[in-house]
């Protein structure tokens, strides 16, 4: 490329300093077939950038000007090499979901096994976006204002001093989009919780909240089976007697007793090595059993 040619192409950016080993945007297909997460994210960023920044940013992305990109909880830091001697430092700060919003979301995730299953293989199903909306969580998974305008989520700051989304941010966003294509669950981390933690919480079945009623034990399945019980209004003519299924309990044979069955399944205690809880529980279970047998077989005091 000659000097003349460069001068006659006004939009052609000045060459930045060359970088070796930077992140290069490699997609042959361009942005056309991004999955919904990456696509949405890229649009959100580009909506805030002017035409120059978009084009130059893309060129930067292709030539690999992004030197460093470190996602952490709620934000991403990146260094993008421009024309000056030092790379510009960028930060994308995302709106994080509040602990309360996370509680609601995890509760919803754990209600349907399909979520955990997809997350386990690294996918982010599109239904998550609707779910988030339905749970009245303020920040969507990727924020794009209607009409394609940029919202302030994420807040982009760059040491180049630009007030709008600069070419450095665009360049870095292409790289991030490509990463999101591979790893969409990164978005969870950007919203405040690393995916591993999300999975762990889902695994704990129902999330715990520091407020409201809560308990350490999971509920049995029958507890939430509403079909078992007739509403009072429909039971007026059969109000007083137990239902037939009572006989089934009474005729069910008692299972053979296996000493400490639960305990042996439980494993090490939540107290760690500080206290021999399991040993203590073994004694407690035996004491309780003895007391129970005493009560059960007590002849009437008549």
């Amino acid at each position: 490329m000659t000097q003349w040619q460069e001068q006659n192409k006004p939009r052609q950016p000045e060459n930045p300093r060359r970088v070796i080993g930077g992140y290069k945007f490699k997609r042959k297909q361009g942005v056309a077939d991004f999955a919904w997460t990456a696509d949405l994210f890229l649009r959100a960023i580009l909506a805030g950038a002017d035409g120059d920044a978009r084009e130059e940013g893309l060129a930067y992305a292709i030539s690999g000007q992004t030197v460093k990109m470190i996602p952490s909880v709620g934000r991403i830091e990146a260094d993008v090499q421009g024309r000056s001697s030092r790379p510009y430092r960028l930060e994308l700060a995302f709106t994080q979901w509040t602990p309360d919003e996370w509680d609601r979301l995890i509760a919803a995730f754990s209600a349907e096994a399909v979520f955990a299953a997809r997350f386990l293989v690294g996918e982010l199903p599109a239904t998550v976006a609707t779910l988030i909306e339905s749970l009245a969580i303020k920040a969507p998974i990727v924020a794009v204002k209607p009409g394609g305008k940029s919202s302030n989520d994420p807040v982009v700051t760059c040491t180049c001093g630009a007030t709008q989304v600069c070419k450095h941010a665009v360049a870095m966003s292409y790289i991030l989009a490509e990463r999101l294509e591979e790893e969409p669950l990164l978005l969870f981390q950007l919203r405040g919780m690393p995916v591993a933690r999300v999975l762990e919480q889902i695994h704990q079945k129902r999330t715990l909240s520091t407020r409201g009623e809560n308990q350490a034990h999971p509920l049995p399945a029958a507890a939430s089976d509403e079909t078992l019980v007739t509403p009072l209004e429909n039971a007026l003519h059969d109000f007083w007697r137990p239902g037939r299924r009572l006989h089934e309990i009474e005729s069910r044979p008692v299972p053979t007793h296996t000493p400490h069955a639960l305990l042996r399944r439980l494993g090490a205690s939540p107290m760690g090595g500080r206290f021999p809880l399991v040993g203590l529980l073994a004694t407690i279970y035996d004491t309780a059993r003895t007391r129970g047998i005493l009560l059960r077989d007590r002849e009437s005091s008549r």
Partner: protein
Amino acid sequence: MLVVHANWSDDCLHLWGESVAALRESRSTTSPTHAFAASSKEVRQALESVIGSLNGAKEKHLDLLLPHHVDAERADARRATPLPSSRLAGLLGQTSSDDEMLTLELARVPTIALTPTAALQLLLQLRDLEGTHHEHFVTAHAMHWWLVLAQFALDCVVDQRVIPTVLQRRDGTYSAQWRPWLNDPDANAQLADLLASMPAAARSIDGSSDRAWPIVDSFLSATIDTIIRTALVDEDFEESIADFDTTSDPHAAWLSGLLGKSDVIKVGRRPTFDVLRDTRGWLGVLDEARSTTGMRLHLEVREPDLEPQEDGTDVSWHVAFGLVDPEAPESVIDAQSLFERSGGKRGSAPSARTEELSEMLLKELARASRIWPELEDALQEATPTGLTLDTRQVYQFMRDVRPILLEAGFFIEVPEWWGESASRINANLLIDSPEHPPTMADGAAAAAMGSQGSFGGLGLQSLVGYRWQVALGTQVVSVEMLEKLSQRGAPLARVGGRWVDLRPEDIDSALKFLRSHPGGQMSLVQALRMAHGIDGPPEALPVSGVQATGWVRQLLSGNDPAESFQMTGPPEAFRGTLRPYQLSGLSWLAFLDRLGLGACLADDMGLGKTIQLIALLQHDRAANGGASSGPSLLVTPMSVLGNWKRELTRFAPELTVHIHHGLDRPAGERFAEVTQTHDVVLTTYAIVVRDQEAMQAIPWRRVVLDEAQYIKNPPTKQTAAIRSLTTRSRVALTGTPVENRLAELWSIVEFCCPGYLGTHQDFRRRFAAPIERNRDRESAERLRALVRPFILRRLKTDPTVISDLPPLVESRQHITLTAEQMRLYDQVVAEMLGKVDATEGIRRRGLVLSALVKLKQICNHPAHYLGEASGELGQQAKRLAKDAKSAAVESTSDEESDASDLTTLPTLPPSALAPERSGKTQRLIEMLEEVLAAGDCALIFTQYRQMGHLLVGMIRQALDVEPLFLHGGTTQAKRDALVERFQKSDGTTPIFVLSLKAGGIGLNLTAANHVFHFDRWWNPAVENQATDRAFRIGQTRTVNVHKYICTGSLEERIDQMIEQKTELATNIIGAGDAWLTELSTGQLRDLLTLRRSGLEGGE
């Protein structure tokens, strides 16, 4: 009298009562207070009168949402009155309220509130009292549900299905709690049953949104927590955390909350929340099986290929790994083939599915290794396919580890023989007896007789030879063999081609046992008891039962023809035809009789117990060369005395029968003389008590009890009198499933085979308590084996029986009138005959017709005739009837043209509902009891709507079921609903009372297999049409038709005329009652006068 209800609210069991007295006073209140609720004080007093002081119970009140009548006459719905509970309605004899408009309204009830500890105590006491009657209160139907719930809580503790947990309350405080673990499939299924069967009344607390789970959860947790906490506080468990700082260390605070009196966790919020989170994670492990989707680990124990060597070198067992889909556990993917596939032998890349499965297998193995650490070794390999164990290890795995892995949701397959009692060392008793039993003819036997209560055959006291043997599996082994095995010391051994579980402790006790019990002779009763592990010395050895030779072998095999049981032919001069199963019943009775052993024939109703017994009586004669072998005493309820007489005459006319009944029955010497000249003495339970002395003096050939469930425990005078009789053999007849009713079983067996089941206390301790309370299968099995030789019960559904039964079995029940009925009957006849000659024309007809109606009513029940609902309760009843808008608007159809039509009265006085006042109702209740016990369904037809109401009240009160009732006033929509409900036959409504006119045609009621014609219509075609409601296409079982006829009354006379197809009869049929009015006074006298046949009770 109160009906006591229970509700759980605010961690307290609230008891409240409906008061019969308050209902009668019908105090009207404007407040939301329940109109006839008892005061707290009344509830307390009623309960304390039976169960002792209720210390610490507080007087409170509860707001409940209960069903109320809608008062159609008032627009103001707030004036609605509460509907009496099902129990109260039963007490009052109120009839069905299905037609009524009901609404859910608030009612405030005074309560006494019990703490969880006191509540559990009370419920356990009430459980012990179930089935007994108290003067001051009865418990509501829902109470039984609470008892089961309390029992469930207790079972959780005993079975160690409890966990320590942390609760975070709405106000931000934390507490430590013990609660049940209900997430395992079995516990969850039980919980689902408890929730589904929870009565609406138990969740009717206002503001609780009528959900079942919160109440069940709260009750179970509070109960379990109180049991465990009390035990831990008593034993000072809190001391074990004395070294920890419970004020700053959240985990220690949690423990303190679990072990001490107070459950509060008193450290900061944030650290306590961490305890909650940690505990959640810890307990979550228990729930893993539920949260893991996909496949589960399958472990299969495979027997060694090689036989163990004589020199004792061990063999290797293999535990093969695999995966199984919990939804389809029959197909197992074994690890071997899985890894072969994923190893890509043909060089191709493994499919994604194979990869996924391999991954799952590894994860599952890791999960299981937490419970069974041996698996960790296998996990060291890249492709673990199984584990090799030695005999000792595999034994320990199957015995100790397997149950825990199963509960954690893993699938484990072990060899079939594992866990069978036959696979362990067991002792069995070998009884040696000669081919033929000692009989009366044997001198020795005859000499031995005369001991109390038994003579003739030696019966249970016969001496038999016995010795103990020890068996491994099914093979009897010698002492030498045992010693050899013991030296080898392996826990599993190969004996006679199969593996057996060879616990060293078992071998020791077996050896010790054999040395100390060389065998010898003992009585049959001792031998049988010992063989079933009672009175037996082998404490430490399971007793596998008994083997026998000779006649004892026959006895033990029951009447199983496969056991070459000796059949008896039908006796000569017997006029009936015995069906094959009846013949085998006769043979069995005769066999036990020869041995001098008692028998209980407990065949299902309708299989012909009577005819089998009569055949036995005839058989006696035949066996004695056609001569009487001494008098047999037949004790029956009064209502069936006549029926027995008729059946005896019909099937065995050769037998001479003395009916010992009535005021002029012979006494003392004369009675002794009479018995000498009769084969059968027929009497009632009441007379046996009254004439006890005379009866005791007779050496009976046999004593037979019909409806033997009449002898009950605790022993009544009646039971004692019957047991005191001297007889050579005893037979009990009953149609109830005796095996399942333990109190009855003991009484009946105590009659048939005195002493066989031990004292009643002994029986309670050894069998009744473990079986009833703990549903102990082993005890139940042992008891069944023990009584099996003496009880014969065949069901209509038994394959051997069903092929012998015709589709329709009709029987006439000849019922004896009670003294009250006879008195009334005589009065009406006398009055009518006194007037009839003085009148003529329409007046005469009216007189005759009204007398006829009255007589039919008297045959049904005195209350039917006397119109007894107009007594003390009448006013109250009428008020209620008005409130309820019950049957008042129903039109009276001709069939219900009673002179005193009381159908509008939903409440009847207790005396009207006393079945014992009428022979028919008494018999009906007896028979229905058997219908219910067998799980059958019945239709009851009556011509009278009012009698229908009486029957409904009576059945409800006596049998505690809710009968359906269809009569002329029932709307079409309601008819359809009733029919549908009955046909559903879910067991909730097994009895259907119908008026003949309204229900006799059109309906399809094939759910019923019993049809009762409670009173008779002169037209057999109409009756048959009614019978056809049940006996029609769609009916798959034998239909039993029972026609009730009062002996000696016009019912019997007319029935005879129809049967004999007399000329008069042709006039009767189809003509209603009109023909009667045309009869001359002489004919009337002949037809209507009560015929006495010595059956009438003057008592």
